[in-house]
């Protein structure tokens, strides 16, 4: 049973990031706030995926499966975002 120390470390890092995102929301506004909160959430998710979910240990294929859905979400956001962002430009 190795690696428990590392898991606890990750957990601590997650809590620190949680504090960071709350703090950021107090300081930042608008687009900056959005970017910061998404960035921090992404890092947290990355940590959970990589260490808690042992993605780091799996074969390449399984990683693709998990990340695939995220890429596909990117399509949804990018193309519908393109509509919202450019509506009423003319």
């Amino acid at each position, binding site marked *: *049973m*190795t*690696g*428990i120390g590392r*898991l*606890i470390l*990750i*957990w601590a890092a*997650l*809590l620190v990031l*949680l504090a960071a*995102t*709350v703090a*950021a*929301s*107090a300081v*930042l*506004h*608008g687009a900056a*706030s*959005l970017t910061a*909160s*998404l960035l*921090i*959430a992404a890092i*947290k*998710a990355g940590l*959970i*995926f990589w*260490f*808690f*979910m*042992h993605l780091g240990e*799996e*074969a390449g*294929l*399984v990683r693709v*499966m*998990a990340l*695939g*859905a*995220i890429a*596909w*979400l990117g399509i*949804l*956001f990018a193309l*519908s975002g393109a509509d*919202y962002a450019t509506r009423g430009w003319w």
Partner: protein
Amino acid sequence: MAENVRLHDPYARPVQQRTADLMGMFVFLGTEIMLFGGLFAAIYVVRGLHPHEVVEASKRLHLFIGAANTAILLTSSLAVAVAVRAARAGRVRLGWMLLLGAALTGLLFLGVKGMEWGMEAEEGLLPFRGVSGSLSGPVDRLFMNLYMIATGLHAIHVSIGVVLLAGLALRIGLGRLQLPERAVVVEVAGLYWHLVDVIWVFLYPALYLIR
């Protein structure tokens, strides 16, 4: 890993069976990501259309309760991650205790969430209990409704997870699930729990921290 795994029908080799189970779970998690993804799209579109009202509405939520709940969920995720290690190492007692612990923290999360909903209902923020007197405009109401749907859907997932983890703890404790041979079952349930955690990690800033 252990070679005395009982194989069920279509499988010929233990590794094949194990990786198939894991892959099935990962694909399922992909579908969960897409499910909540649609919800996030809705949240961000409403935010984009009405930046001001949404900020005002978001300020009405209990930011610190949400933060505490995030911490609770992260902690239970840690418990599950360690439980998976324990299961793989065949540490039966540690395994079921950690799983039970994770299920209980999950329950705690639900309790806190329920309390929070109660407070918000009291403040007239939520769509039930007649007219919500304290909201200034339709967009605030829309935001709160979305909040209710999103956290409600998430809470359903947490509840499923709690049942899953508690059930596993029970089966391991009673010796119905052999460890480390069937550690993959713990792993698969763990994956689900972690994803529910990840979803919350995104929901929290998307709802509570809009400024």
